């Protein structure tokens, strides 16, 4: 009998000890501090409840349980309650028996939970284990609880995964609605598959699960959009930044170059941190350092010689580029003020005059022998490539191609690359659009530009998905 005012779907997560239940719950509930995972004997000892919530409203209530450890003996012990009217009643009788607080105290916790008003049970399987008899006993005991059971096959990405054997065992018991998951490195979309399968299992809750999936999809889209915008803003800030140096003074030039590189590096780091934060990671996360793709993206230096060589080849320049910092070509007035989207009238007047101001400044600086330094296209390409790789990795596409996508010389990518560079050209003329310099001023055009860049990156990302 289901209570009418029930708010969330309740699910018990059971499995043999160290099968990965707690990790699974951390992934689903997005709470890194939930429970504790330990390799030694005895991870979870309590029954702990957490929830999957959207905007604070819980949709799913998940109960982490201690693992089954002594299932064969348990099943043998349960024989004595065989004569009762249902297997469920047998479990109830077991819970009143003395060994429920003795030898089988841990298993009793699990069973006590299952006899409450639970909607479904996730049975988590470590697929690197051989399907021994003890696991079959666990499945039998679960069947006795008369709750819908969904097996979750964990560690499927592992080299020693025996997923086929397990599928046979499960089919043997009629458990066909199942999910292959990898709690530590989930593939993109695997969460969605899990909820879809759950919704097949729990027909009556299909509407709520549908809502949950839609809300999760919306959250994922919002994350992606925010990530793309973050990259776009990084590119605009980097492109628009100028620093001055005196022509003919090598030390000053070197200093200026160093300054620019430092600022751009720091800004890139900021962008990477934002992306991590959006995907709920921290630089100190254990999982992060264990993932080579992710940590690699964060530790490499932007301006290192290898990268320069690669980019030089890609952009078709013969010799290696020195510092990826070039002399800025201060654009002519016409290139700036008559671009698309400028309203007639005073705006034109305003822009023309401000461009005259820029032209005046430029010529004054020429007279003083000062030059403007700004970042070159090659470095922008590198920035974009690195951050896109990071974003992909965070989205769960850890199996992305090894050559950075942007530097892949296929035709589609070349076109996309030139689109990005063209968009950024507008930014070069507006030094005030860079947060790295003084006199930062935000305006509608800058925001539009960031959005346009985000869109064009997205189209590249969509095209080169290899799933």
């Amino acid at each position, binding site marked *: 009998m289901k209570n009418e*005012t029930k708010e*969330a779907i309740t699910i018990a997560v059971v499995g043999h000890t160290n099968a990965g239940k707690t990790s699974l719950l951390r992934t689903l509930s997005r709470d890194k501090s939930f429970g504790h995972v330990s390799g030694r004997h005895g991870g979870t000892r309590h029954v702990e*409840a957490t929830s999957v919530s959207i905007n*604070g409203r*819980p949709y799913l209530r998940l109960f982490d349980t201690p693992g089954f450890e002594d299932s064969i003996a348990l099943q043998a012990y349960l024989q004595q309650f065989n004569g009762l009217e249902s297997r469920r009643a047998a479990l109830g009788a077991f819970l009143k028996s003395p060994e429920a607080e003795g030898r089988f105290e841990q298993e009793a916790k699990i069973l006590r939970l299952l006899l409450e008003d639970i909607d479904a049970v996730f049975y988590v399987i470590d697929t690197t284990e051989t399907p021994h008899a003890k696991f079959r006993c666990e499945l039998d005991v679960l069947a006795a609880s008369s709750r819908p059971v969904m097996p979750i096959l964990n560690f499927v990405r592992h080299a020693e995964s025996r997923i086929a054997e397990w599928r046979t065992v499960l089919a043997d018991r009629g458990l066909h609605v199942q999910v292959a998951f990898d709690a530590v490195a989930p593939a993109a979309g695997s969460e969605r598959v899990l909820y879809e399968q759950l919704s097949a299992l729990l027909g009556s809750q299909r509407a709520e699960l549908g809502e949950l999936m839609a809300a999760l999809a919306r959250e994922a889209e919002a994350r992606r959009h925010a990530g793309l915008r973050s990259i776009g803003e990084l590119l605009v800030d980097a492109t628009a930044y100028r620093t001055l140096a005196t022509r003919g003074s090598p030390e000053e030039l070197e200093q200026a170059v160093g300054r620019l590189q430092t600022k751009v590096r720091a800004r890139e780091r900021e962008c990477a941190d934002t992306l991590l934060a959006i995907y709920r990671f921290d630089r100190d996360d254990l999982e992060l350092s264990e993932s080579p793709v992710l940590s690699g993206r964060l530790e490499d230096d932007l301006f290192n010689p290898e990268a320069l060589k690669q980019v030089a080849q890609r952009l078709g320049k013969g010799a290696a580029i020195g510092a990826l910092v070039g002399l800025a070509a201060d654009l002519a007035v016409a290139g700036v003020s008559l671009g*698309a*989207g400028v309203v007639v009238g005073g705006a034109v*007047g*305003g822009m023309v005059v401000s461009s005259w101001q820029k032209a005046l400044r430029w010529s004054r600086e020429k007279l003083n022998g000062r030059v403007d330094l700004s970042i070159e296209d090659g470095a922008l390409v590198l920035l974009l490539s690195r951050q896109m790789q990071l974003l992909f990795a965070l989205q769960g596409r850890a199996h992305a191609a090894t050559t950075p996508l942007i530097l892949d010389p296929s035709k589609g990518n070349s076109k996309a690359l030139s689109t990005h560079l063209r968009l950024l050209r507008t930014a070069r003329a507006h030094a005030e659009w860079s947060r790295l310099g003084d006199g930062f001023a935000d305006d509608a055009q800058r925001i*539009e530009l960031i959005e346009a860049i985000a869109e064009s990156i997205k189209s590249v990302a969509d095209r080169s998905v290899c799933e």
Partner: protein
Amino acid sequence: MAKYQGHPGVHKGTRRSDHPGIISRLEPIFASVLVQNTTMADSERSLPFQLWLAEAISHLERDGWLDDSVALRGLTASSGGPFTTRRDERQVLVLGRTNGLNKVNPIVRELANELEAFRATGKLLAIALAVFAILGGAATAAAVLSNGTVNVVLAWSALLGVHLMTLVAWCLGLAFAGQHLGFTRSGWWSFVTQKLLGSKHRLLLVQAMTTLVARTRLVFWTYSLASHALWSLFLFSAVVTLTYLFALHEYRFTWETTILPPTFFVQFVDTLGWLPSQFGIPPPTPDAVTRLTNDEATRQAWAAWILSGVVAYGLLPRVLLTALSHMKRARHTRSLALDLEQPHYVRLLQRIDAQLKPDTQIVDPAPDHAQDLSVMQTLPSGLRDHRTSVSGLIVGFELHDDVAWPPAELPTGVLAEANLSSLAEREALLRRVARTQPERLVVACDARSGLDRGTLHYLDEVARHSGALGILLLNQATARAGRADNWKEELIDRGIPAAAIFAELAGALEWLEAVATPAPSPASQHEK
């Protein structure tokens, strides 16, 4: 400001700005007029105001979050409903936090006050411009009719020339992407307004408004509304002045030329008289035009021609466009919303979600973990509502080791919490109190400890979520001289009545039990 009178077109921000600062001079008007003015109670602000404040806070928080723990605790997750209406629950949550911050955080209150000042200044400037428009209209009309002979063509162009040109410019702007009427910024302008408004966060607020309306056409329509409204006032006042002068002076109407043929003028008068003639006001006859007769009928015809021309080609279109701009602007304002797919908002919503979701709870603990703060001793039947209703709650706070806590015997309905000291424990209690909202809560403190700001702040926060707070001040007799009195004074200063400060457990328990009606269980509060 004197410039405006000489160049009536300039303050519309169109073509003839010979100074880049003109548009940026209009920043505060736009920025403030963009926010609809509705009646404001203390706590209820209009939605655009809230959106602007939220956006300003997000700009402020680029370098780190504000201290928003109180505001977050005051949020409640939406209670559900059909899926379609829950689409903007994220914005509701963010605005809830904004309003919460406005109430408690001094930085945010300052921002809100500056926003208000901005709007007030904007309104003032709008009024000033309106006055100038009216005066300008009257002055132009008076100038046109300044001597007894009126050169009709010059009169027409003086009254309507600039208006028509700016109207055409506006139409072009409407056609070609009215979005990028950006706020340019020049150094001297920020210096001037800094002195005028003296507002620390002026730049922040302008940037916040830029971000908020960046991808809408709100700026264009606000600018249109301002422009058309001011022109309407100008033309209206011109019409009134013209009528007044025509009524009380006698004028001769003439045209002069060196190079144009007379037929041009006949044509001119006829063409421009077309629209008024549709409304039954015929222009002067071609004969009268050519021969420049000066009889009464002709004079009246000329006057009618001028007046009706100004109304038909000037006032009427402008008034209609004002109405249109107002409608469009209102529509765009209504659909204004926060762009929640920004990195800042994504992270903020993650924080809000973490705050609002039900706590992780240990249900059915392992045998050696019986006395955890968040532990419930038995599996609740039903499993879903973990908010037990208690009539009274008594909590130990930083008690010394030799105090026996929790107290051994408690009456039914009173729950004791363990001795709090770490941050996690404090936070857990606050969350619990925020959820259960007990009517009466007693915090047991040790008078032998000193009273510090952190403790007072914490007691404030606890008091915020409970009906009444009582303090059980233990060990008053053995405390150092003056400490117990210090406690009592400070507590009374903070608003805890002397009757709610107890020296003995028994007194505190009695007070707790004296709740008139038991607190309703939160489950029943959420019944549909």
